[in-house]
């Protein structure tokens, strides 16, 4: 019975996710510029706006003693070629957004998952067991999604169905898994209404509605921008197995290499150009002649054509001349650090401390950049901007996994047109992370002669 109910539940969830996918892959839908026909995401067409966090009063934890902690909502955002904004909330953010769809702005999204109830079903549904489903039935809900809708409507309490441990589990998931593609939220016309989208206006591509852009014509195509994804790496390069410096007579530590490569923004715009007029004969004799001077015309002209009804002025053709600008996106700052992972910290304080009395954490974090090495940043003639740094001999003193994280700040891009600096893309923050393992030698005593 439990298996059967689980299968039914999975089918419901798969249907919730799959049916909208088919709809959104339609070319007529705004999702057409984001999704391939098979439902995969067209990352190459999206401008990565980076990660943004903001305080959210709809996302809180209550502690005894009248303490309410407002958590930060965290999103990774992308901009589509047409100016729509794609938002990927962290798992915890998505959970609270689903619980508070209006306050969080979820209700304003053209979400592929439809609504908050579907998102809660997706997040919580797989963890519901047969007893919980039976419990829902006793509460009058044969469809879990109906229960989740009642939660959103304020008629039921989410904690009546999720585990005591769910809140911390999903908070932990937000950090351990990065940004799982749990849900893609699409905000149409995100540029024009950026104040009201999750994450606000920071880092969005410039809004040209105020006229501070290259003029557009009704005949020529609209300007467009594209940019290949940036490449960011932060990794340990040596030695192969770093040893905690306390056990290493040479105090070798580990070497960290960071590198950044940001391709230029390709800004394509069209200038409307009209050929000079020509003076053409009119067989009917109904023309108005071609007034001088002859330099006005693109063909031959003489005085007899003036006021001559057998000639008339024909306007020149209109052409659209394509201009492709390669705009470098300069790197303004690089920050990097290494932090002992929470799991390793826990291991030292519990497992290791139980075997080695008073094992403690020596230095759980290192601010690598700026500070521990110079950063070389520049933009080449091909528009590619790079930055790199080599941080030698970082003295890791604690065993375990260190999270290596890097933030890259850019200046955005600017196009100088008619002596006016026009912002094309806004400054943004890019992020990447990796991990580094630091080893320790542990001594185990064995009884002599033991088999």
């Amino acid at each position: 019975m439990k298996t059967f109910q689980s299968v039914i539940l999975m089918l419901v969830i798969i249907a919730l996710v799959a049916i909208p996918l088919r709809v959104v892959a339609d070319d007529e839908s705004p999702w057409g510029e984001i999704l391939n026909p098979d439902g995969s995401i067209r990352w190459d067409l999206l401008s990565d706006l980076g990660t943004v966090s903001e305080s959210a009063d709809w996302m809180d934890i209550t502690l005894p003693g009248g303490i309410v902690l407002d958590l930060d909502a965290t999103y990774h955002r992308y901009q589509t070629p047409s100016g729509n904004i794609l938002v990927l909330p962290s798992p915890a953010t998505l959970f609270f957004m689903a619980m508070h769809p209006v306050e969080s702005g979820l209700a304003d999204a053209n979400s592929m998952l439809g609504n908050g109830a579907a998102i809660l079903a997706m997040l919580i549904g797989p963890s519901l067991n047969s007893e919980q489903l039976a419990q829902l039935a006793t509460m009058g809900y044969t469809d879990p999604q109906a229960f989740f809708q009642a939660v959103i409507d304020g008629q039921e309490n989410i904690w009546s169905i999720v585990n005591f441990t769910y809140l911390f589990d999903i908070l932990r998931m937000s950090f351990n898994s990065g940004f799982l593609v749990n849900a893609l939220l699409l905000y149409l016309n995100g540029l024009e209404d950026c104040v009201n989208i999750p994450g606000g206006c920071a880092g969005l591509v410039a809004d040209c509605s105020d006229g501070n852009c290259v003029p557009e014509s009704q005949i020529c195509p609209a300007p467009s921008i594209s940019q290949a994804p940036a490449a960011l790496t932060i990794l340990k390069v040596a030695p192969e197995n770093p040893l905690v410096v306390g056990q290493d007579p040479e105090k070798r530590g580990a070497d960290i290499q960071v590198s950044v490569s940001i391709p230029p923004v390709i800004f394509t715009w069209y200038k409307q150009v009209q050929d000079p007029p020509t003076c053409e004969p009119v067989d009917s004799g109904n023309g108005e002649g071609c007034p001088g001077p002859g330099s006005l015309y693109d063909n031959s002209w003489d005085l007899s054509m003036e006021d001559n009804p057998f000639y008339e002025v024909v306007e020149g053709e209109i052409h659209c001349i394509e201009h492709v600008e390669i705009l470098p996106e300069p790197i303004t700052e690089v920050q990097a650090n290494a932090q002992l992972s929470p799991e390793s910290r826990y291991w030292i304080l519990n497992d290791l401390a139980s075997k080695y009395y008073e094992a403690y954490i020596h230095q759980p974090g290192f601010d690598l950049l700026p500070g521990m090495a110079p950063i070389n940043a520049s933009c080449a003639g091909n528009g590619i901007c790079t930055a790199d740094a080599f941080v030698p001999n970082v003295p890791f003193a604690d065993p375990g996994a260190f999270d290596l994280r890097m933030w890259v700040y850019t200046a955005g891009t600017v196009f100088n047109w008619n002596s006016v600096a026009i912002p094309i893309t806004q400054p943004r923050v890019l992020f990447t992370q990796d991990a580094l393992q630091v080893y320790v030698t542990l001594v185990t005593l064995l009884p002599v002669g033991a088999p």
Partner: protein
Amino acid sequence: MNEIMVPKKWVVAVLVIIGLGAGLLWGVPKVLGRSQANVSAPPTQTPAEEAQTGQDDNAAQKAAIVGAHAFYTVDYQKGQQAWLDQLCSVSTQTGCIVYQKVIGPNLWSGFEQAETATTVKVTVQEKVDEQISDTRGNAPMQVWRLQIELSDPWPMQNEPQTIFSALALVIQEQGEWKFERFLTEEELSVFSSAGGQP
């Protein structure tokens, strides 16, 4: 051989009683929302089982006390890291991660700004619930009601108060009871009235 005559009415009555009894045995837990699988303690225990339960309760109670003690003992001068290290040494792995990533950073700026240093006296009031966590490998978990007596109020409280009640969730992790987090009264009441899910 003597033949015993049993009236049909009696047969029907016995069957009805059996049916009602079975229905009650099966149906009452459903009506209460607590299935047999969720009843954490059998109705009768052997002396050995009772002793084990007592040991578990003692260990769980201790985990709740040390968890609350670590959480509410703050010294801004020793820094966030010292507070987290102490808390992580008595908390579950998930709890430790969330305290490091979410709770600590949110609380600590307020402590530093207000130069907070508090000690705490933790008193156990009662065990209010026990369940099995099927998302943590069917680990036992218990909820204990504690009384917290802070030496000074915390700066981020809505209203300054030093004596208040707290519900501590503790979970057995690798055979050892650890502190996970504090529950709200609302969470507890909903869980308990729903039959202690999961």
